[in-house]
Every structure is written in structure tokens, then in C-alpha cells.
């Protein structure tokens, strides 16, 4: 009975302890707030409505990609090929519309199918042929990027129908960019799947301890195949938004995004070994990446230096995660 009363006390926690749990779940808010304050002080035009909408629109595609990476990383694996799948599905989407005159819907369905296919292939390589995800998805990265150039002949495909322009450039009710709306909707769905469905729980269990999950009657390999497939789906959605935003299919589309997506997921509290982390944290992680990049651009910092900074951020984020895990292990 003692347990009961304690349990209740915990739930009644009050504002302060509630705030503490909130903070420990979303440590990421600290660097976001700090960074916003710094940029506000030193970067011109940072704190304007237009700039914030710009940040969010930039972020939305990375965030959508990160939503796919989230599931994969929550199972303890990762996917280095996601960004080139963004490029490939975008190029196919553009090519089918421009060169073959397909309707946007039909072209979009094919693009999604290609995205799903890459994920299924990744999942099978990892679970059936036991190829480490690192190698399997690195291979997929090269395959897809190579196919981008094959499909486009290495030239951008321009002349994408104006009818899809709203997807990447339009505003909902003239206030919120559509990509941001998509991002929010996707994250609501992902958060729901992660916390309220059996599939979501299986994902965390496989990441937390694949052997225990297997011995609890969870088909861990199937779960892994599904998460890689979801990664491909997320990449194809991001790819189509990118085409609409640029009005063209770029063979280099999405280059470097896998990196930003990984930063977002790690910053969002998903441990590298999997098993924990929340989708909302990942979305905030993507926002942090966007704010960082935007401020540096406003300050006219050379984009080469920006890359250096992003590398430092990734290593620091993972270092922080490792440090936290070690301290937890020590506190045992």
C-alpha cells in the first residue's frame, strides 16, 4: 500500500517537480533559449516574424527527415542514406512530371514508393543478411546519390508545374508556411505512434534490449524492417517538399541532411543505443539546428565555418549523451 501512496505523491508532484521532470525530458530547451538570446543580441533581424517563418520553413524538411531517423535510432540503428533518398525521390518526382507529363499525384505516389523501397532494402540488408546498418546504409547513400545523377543526367530538372508550388512555398491562411504545417501534423502522428501504440512500444523495447524483446515474443527483426521503411517514407516526403520549394529537381538535393537529422535526433534525447527519447524532443532538436544555421547566416559567417560548427555540435551532443549514460550507470 505504501507503493500506492508514493505513486500518488509522485503524480501530484506540484509545479516545481513537474517543471523539473519537464526540463529533464527536454534538456534541449536550455541551449535553444540560450542560443535565441545570443542571436537576438548580436544578429540583425533575427527576432522578426519573417525570419522565424523562414527558420521554421528551413527546418521543416530536416525535421520531417529526422522523424524517420527517430524511429530508426530509437531501435538502436541508424541510416546514413536518408539524405540521398531525399534527393532521389525528389528527382524522380520532378522527372516524371516534367519529362513524362505525369500528374503530380501519380508522380508523388511513385516517389513515395521509391522511398519505401529503399527503406525495405535497408531493412532486409540489416535483418536478413546481417550487414551492419553503418555499411548497408552507407552503400544505399552512394547508390541513391548515384541514381540522382543518372536520373537527371546531372542537370537540375526545372519546369516543375506551378500547381504544386504551394507545397513548398505557400502559406496556410497567409500566416503559416505549408511545410511547417506538414511538419506539425507529421510530428503529432509520430508522437502518437511512439507513445500510444503497441508498435511504438515495440520500437523502444527493441532499442532498449533487442534480446529481451525477442524473448518477450516481439519480432525484433520485423520491427527493424518497418522502421527503415518509415525512414524511406519520411525521406520521400521531404524530397517532394524540396522539389516544390525549389521548383526543380536537384541531383544534389538534400546533401548533408542526414547529418543534420542525426544531430536533431541526438539533441532530442534519443540515445545512440536506442530505447529512449521523444519525438517532440527531436522536433526541437531540428529547430535548434535551424536556429544555429540561421543566426550564423545572418551574421554573414562563411558556410564552410558553419559546417565546422555543425560537426562540433554533433560531437558535443553525443559526448553529452555518453556522459549522461555513464553517470547513470555510475549512480547505480
Amino acid at each position, binding site marked *: 500500500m505504501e507503493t500506492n501512496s508514493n505513486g500518488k505523491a*509522485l503524480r501530484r508532484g506540484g509545479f516545481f517537480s513537474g517543471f523539473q521532470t519537464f526540463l529533464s525530458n527536454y534538456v534541449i530547451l536550455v541551449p535553444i533559449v540560450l542560443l535565441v538570446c545570443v542571436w537576438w543580441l548580436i544578429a540583425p533581424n533575427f527576432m522578426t516574424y519573417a525570419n522565424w517563418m523562414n527558420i521554421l520553413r528551413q527546418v521543416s524538411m530536416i525535421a520531417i527527415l529526422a522523424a524517420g531517423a527517430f524511429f530508426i535510432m530509437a531501435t538502436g540503428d541508424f541510416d546514413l542514406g536518408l539524405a540521398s533518398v531525399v534527393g532521389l525521390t525528389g528527382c524522380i518526382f520532378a522527372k516524371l512530371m516534367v519529362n513524362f507529363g505525369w500528374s503530380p499525384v501519380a508522380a508523388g505516389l511513385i516517389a513515395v514508393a521509391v522511398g519505401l523501397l529503399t527503406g525495405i532494402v535497408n531493412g532486409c540488408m540489416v535483418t536478413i543478411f546481417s550487414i551492419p546498418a553503418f555499411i548497408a546504409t552507407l552503400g544505399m547513400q552512394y547508390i541513391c546519390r548515384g541514381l540522382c545523377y543518372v536520373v537527371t543526367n546531372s542537370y537540375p530538372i526545372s519546369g516543375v508545374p506551378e500547381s504544386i508550388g504551394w507545397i513548398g512555398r505557400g502559406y496556410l491562411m497567409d500566416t503559416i508556411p505549408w511545410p511547417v504545417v506538414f511538419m506539425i501534423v507529421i510530428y503529432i502522428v509520430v508522437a502518437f505512434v511512439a507513445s500510444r501504440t503497441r508498435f511504438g512500444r515495440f520500437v523502444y523495447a527493441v532499442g532498449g534490449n533487442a534480446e529481451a524483446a525477442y*524473448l518477450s515474443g516481439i519480432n525484433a527483426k520485423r520491427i527493424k524492417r518497418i522502421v527503415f521503411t518509415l525512414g524511406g517514407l519520411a525521406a520521400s516526403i521531404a524530397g517532394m517538399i524540396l522539389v516544390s520549394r525549389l521548383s526543380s529537381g536537384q541531383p544534389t538535393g538534400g546533401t548533408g541532411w542526414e547529418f543534420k537529422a542525426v544531430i536533431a535526433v541526438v539533441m532530442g534525447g534519443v540515445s545512440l543505443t536506442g530505447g*529512449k527519447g521523444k519525438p517532440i524532443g527531436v522536433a526541437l532538436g531540428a529547430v535548434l539546428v535551424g536556429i544555429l544555421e540561421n543566426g550564423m547566416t545572418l551574421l554573414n559567417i562563411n558556410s564552410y565555418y558553419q559546417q565546422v560548427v555543425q560537426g562540433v555540435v554533433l560531437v558535443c551532443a553525443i559526448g553529452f549523451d555518453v556522459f549522461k549514460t555513464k553517470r547513470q550507470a555510475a549512480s547505480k
Partner: protein
Amino acid sequence: MDNRETILDIQHITKTFPGVRALNDVSFQVKRGSVHALVGENGAGKSTLINVLTGVYHPDGGRYFFKGKEAHVTMPLEAQMLGISVVHQELKLSETLSVAENIFLGRPFLNKARLVDWRKLRAEASELLDSLNIRLNVDTEVAHLSVAQKQIVEICKALSFNAEMIIMDEPSATLTDKELDSLFHIIDILKERGVTIVYISHRMEEIFRIADTVTVLRDGGHVGTMPVADVNREKLISMMVGRTLGEEYPKLKAEIGEIALEVRNLSAKKLLHDISFNVRHGEIVGISGLVGAGRTETARAVFGADKRATGEIFIDGEPVKINSVIDAVRNKIALVPEDRKKQGLVLIHSIKHNVSLVNLKNVCKRGLLNDELERRMAEKFIEVLNIVTPSGEKEVRLLSGGNQQKVVLAKWLAVDSKIIILDEPTRGVDVGAKAEIYKLMCRLAQDGKAVVMISSDLPELIGVCDRIYVMREGTISGELEREDFSQERILSHAVS
């Protein structure tokens, strides 16, 4: 005993690990040029003793003399330099290197230019092999060798250090009869050369065949050292066992009903041969046997976790197909695995999430997980199993071993499992929690569940079980009813 005759003199060695006295005041001597057998049950302290002798562990008390001088060894290399080498049960060779490279690993011969002198390396390796009458190409990659051949490479490696004492840790465990003969032949050659062999084995016949002297360890203590000629098999077994049963095993009477689970002719490649057993409702059946006898493999095969070659499974008399863990769960079979941290629990998740893991359907409302139902399920089992925790939200990695084990059990009780297989359920659990786990098992039996317990702890099996199967080398070698239980009988089935 004369100093020149005694190569190793162990005096009052004690080694304690948290909660366990692994070696307690062990003293004995090993004669130069003899084959000295070291026997004891699982956990008797044999491995710890070897690790102390070779500097892997530092003893808490006592000392030992090698060749008349007190040895201060802090790592295996120093022991090797001194002349003590170990041929481990899991051979420690570099698979991708050649036989010659492995023999002289880390100590290559160098020529004038400070480069590896391959010719000398190969010549020295061949010479060592020839001295044992072994034909083996020194350039063969070790990965291509049989276990027996790898053992020979290890022995040559020991000889390359001019080992005067070679400790063989269960060398026969994975050998065929023919290979064993050739191993014994090598031991004879070594003996002629004056090399002392400390031979660790569970197999009585081997000890009587090659050993001159035998030392028995039990529960970390030294029971006796005597010439093999002075003992017989029965005496040796009773020395290995020799414990008295305390009152630590509460046995509650349960009504034993019909056969719940029956396994017929189960085989799995290499490991398991033609295993048949059954468990009744309300019965606790033990599976005994030495490490490597195939107990865990049997449990995993029945549970659908590993593939099996042949075998039928019947539940309540009906044949069932179990080809995956999911099938086993559907048929109400549960497995509480050997290593709860690695196999039983998601350590970084809460008690609540671990308990519901197998049974998520029952905490769903309209197909969606319901936190309230999940919390209630956890609270119910926290109370029923008396898990000590402030709430179901606590991460299981923070619980004690006994409480963690209860969480694993709760997970299976939540799906109302009827047949519960527990693999070493009390390993690493303190005495108080052990008694609680025994009581729980008895209560499960009283509820009509069929319980199977795999254990290396004989007193525990004798105290708790209604019937015991003994396994040896992948087969069932004996079956005992409760009135016939004795450690001697079980052990005589377990060893050959």
C-alpha cells in the same frame, strides 16, 4: 614433502568477491611431474583458483610457492614467464593468424634488421610440434583447425615459455573420444619430460585414467587431496557434494494434476539429442546437469527461441506447433531466462513498461495503449510479488537482483502463462530473495501451473523440486523422484 618434489605449494589462499567467498583457506601441494586432477561442482572455486595462480585475481589472503620460491604474480604473462601456463576451456588464440604466429604471439624472433625472422619462427614452431609427435602445418590459419588441434597449439605455446606446469581447464569438454586419446598421449609425453599437469575435469573416468593425485574443492573450500589410487568414484562424488540441507527451502504441498507439457524426442544440431520430458500441472520439475550439458539450449528450443531439428511438443495432451517465441507465448509458455539483465529486462525502461511488454494487448483501450490500465497492471504485480519499489515508474536497472527477477516473472504472470520455465532463477540473488523466489514457485505450482527450474545449485533443486531430470552432454541421463533425491545420485548421472 621434499621441496624438490613439490612444484607448487598453495598455502591458505582466500579470495572473496562481494557476497561470495570464492576461495576459503585453500592449501595443498602439487608434485613435480605428476598429473594432478582438480575437481568440484560448478562454483566450487576451481576457476578462481586458476585465476589466482596466474595473476588474474589477487588473493585476499595466503600465498603460494612455485619451485620453492614464493610467487608474486600480478598478470598472466608473469605466470607464463615463471613457468605456469593455462590451456583455457575457451581457447584464446588469434583465429586469423597461423599456427606458428600463435605459438610465439607477442614474442617474434627478430633478425639483425629488427624484422621478424620468419624462418626461425617456423622452424621453432615445427620443432615444438615434432616434440609432441604432432603433424601440423605451421602455416595453417588457426581458424581452419579443429578444437583438438587448437588445444595442441595452446600446449605448444605453453611449452614455448618453457612451462613447467600446464593447467588444463576442462580440456575434454569438446573433444571426441579419439581426440581425447591423442590428448592423453600428449600428456604422457609431457609427463615424461617432467612437466606437471593440473587437469580440471568433470569426467570421473578421465581422472581415474590419467591422474596421479586428485584435489577436491567444494564451495570455495579444500575438501581433500589424495592419491587417485586411494579413492573410488563414489567417494569422490560424495566429497564433491558433502553438504547438508538447511531449512532454506520452503516446500509447500501442491496438488499434482495431469501432464501439462510434454516434450518428445527433441534434438537440435550438435547440442541436443533425443530429449524427452514432461511436467504436470502443480509440479515443479528440476533440470540438473553441469554447465554445457544443454539445459539452457533445451529450454530455448522448447520456447521457440532457437531452431530445433526434431521433436514434438504436447500441451495438455494436444500436439502444438512452436516455431517462434510468439507461438510459445500464445501457448502460455513462459521463459525466465538465465541472464535477466541481458535477456529478461529492458533495463532502461520502467517496471510498468517491462511488466506489460508481453501483454500490451491487455493494457489497450480501443487498440491504443492506456496508461491507467498499464499502471494498474504494474501495481497489481508489485503487490502480488512483493516487489520493493516506490512505484511502477522506477527504472528496473535501479532494482536489486531479486526484485529484477520478480519483474521478469511478473511479465509472464501478466499473460497468465501456464507453463513457466525458469533458467537459473536465483543466480546472483541474495539469500533472503532466494527464499522468496522459492516460495513464489511453490505458489505458482499451487495455482496449478507447471514449473520447470533449471539450476546448477543441487541443494536448491533437491529442496524445491518434485522431480528432477539430469542432463549430460545434450541428453537426459537420468530422472529422479523426490523420495530418491540425493546429491550423490544427481551428480552420478551428471558426470560420466
